[in-house]
């Protein structure tokens, strides 16, 4: 952060590289977690849709989306 408390480019670069390091270090675990979400959540989504539970369906779909994001990032 600079003297005015704003986020500088350097801060952003540091955050990005920290994120990259984290993803690299934990790649296997992240991929495993993404696979687990991608395999289980569609069944939860199906149950939610069958029961007309919109909130649960939204949660399940959000987690499927998260699993796809993790696949791209990991």
């Amino acid at each position, binding site marked *: 952060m600079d003297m005015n408390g704003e986020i500088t480019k350097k801060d952003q670069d540091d955050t990005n590289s920290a994120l990259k390091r984290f993803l690299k270090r934990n790649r*296997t675990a992240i*991929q*495993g977690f*993404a*696979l687990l979400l*991608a*395999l289980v*959540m*569609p*069944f939860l*989504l*199906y149950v*939610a*849709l069958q029961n007309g539970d919109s909130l649960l*369906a939204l949660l399940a*779909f959000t987690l*499927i989306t998260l699993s*796809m*994001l993790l*696949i*791209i990032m990991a």
Partner: protein
Amino acid sequence: MQLTLLNWFLAFFPIVVVLVMMLAFHWGGSKAGALGWFVAILLGVIRFGAGPLLIGYAQAKAILLSLDVLYIIWTALLLFHIANEAGAIKMISDSLLSITEDRTIQGLLLGWLLVSFLQGMGGFGVPVAVAAPLLVAVGFNPVQAVIMASVGHGWAVNFGSMAASFQTLIAVTGLPGELLAPDAAILLGLTGILCGMMVAFIAGGWKGLRRTLPLVLLLAVVMGSVQYFLTTSGIWTLGATGGAMAGLLVAIGVLRLRYMRNNHKDLTHPLLVDVPPAAVIEKRSLPIALSGYAVLVVLAFAINLVPPLKGFLGQIKLNLAFPQLSTSLGWVTPMENGRTISIFSHPGAILFYSSLVAYAIYRWKGYIKPGSVKHIMSNVSKGAVKSSLGIVAMVGMAVVMSHSGMTNLLAQGLSQGFGKEFYPVVAPFIGALGAFITGSNNNSNVLFAILQQNTAQMLGLSIPLILGAQTAGASLGSIFAPAKIIVGCSTVGLGSKEGMVMGRILVYGLLTIVFIAGMTVLMGFLQA
């Protein structure tokens, strides 16, 4: 949804994204597939009128289709790593090396004959997953290995996997198998010659191809004829298996005769000629080494051909019922049951039983050390996780595309753009497109067979010929499907080079589709 150039291009866009990311940016299949999934959903909602219900149910359908494939991938890798841990893979490769020292012929034995036989028994990426590491073990580089194994089994996909794809063609068109089998068998049998020639070329260049051409032609004629005979006799479930088995037997006979003629000595045990001293010292037996795969063959035949056994094991099924789904633009997907997975008689289950029996045999004979289970499981998960992610993402994308009418629009554009004269040329490309998107000959037939049937009827073309071109195109199209390439690459440590491998397989794959298109036109003329 109205067919316009813009709509057609937008329907094609998710595939373009996957292709560009894999080919130009060298992304792996899982990452490219996940991005394609996002693009397909966005376009499906924004442009093609897919609602939340449709998108949600599409995910559930996609996971059933994915599990159907993943069940086989995980268990095939399990069997492979158990055999590998026992030293069986090394022994098989050494034995094949001992049959012939000709590198091109070694490539043909593993990358054309063995891989076709495995396609007959397993399919779903198993042949490439098993044969590619074997090809690397005998000295081919990993890229060559994946390409040879992929190209080599393309002709056997439709009548392979116990003819699952052909059964689907029968089911969705409502036409008898006896009517559909001849044209499909001729097209695939002829393409088998090209597959063999391509494998010989990749293994030994032009020189290798010229030298082995008579052998390739002989084996292709044997395999194609046996497949034609079996499929037109109603035994299409064993079409590819029987053809490839006949090819392997003839090849071993010919090579053995040639060896005897050249060396003037009797080869009572030709398979043990060049087995390394270490293996001889350990006194490991080739039949024991092969037992894992022998058990697989026996169980596959028994479970598929003994109805009481099949009925008993097929009692517990995973299946979900889906309501009719429609887009706001009027594209309707009828109410249906999703993919049914028979937990205990599925090919994945057969591979799992084989893995257990193989492990017990190897452990009993001392080929596998007591603490090796952890090592085996670690290797299996290393190879399977990334390819599983790729398959889940790609199939998810494909199902969203088909349910929002994008896939149908793609096929309509292709068929309407060409008249009666050119449609036979286009038909195999539509089949190949379906297989490319979904990663499966079977799914391509689900998506496009009815469209092809209706178009052939409207244009006054031979329906069995056009459907033969559809399924033959899909059979060969499946070899360059990202989902399959991911599996092949994962088994030989090419996890980050899928894009490059795909680019090279595309060239060979498209050549085979062009060949099928030419043969379809020729057969159309002959049948007229």
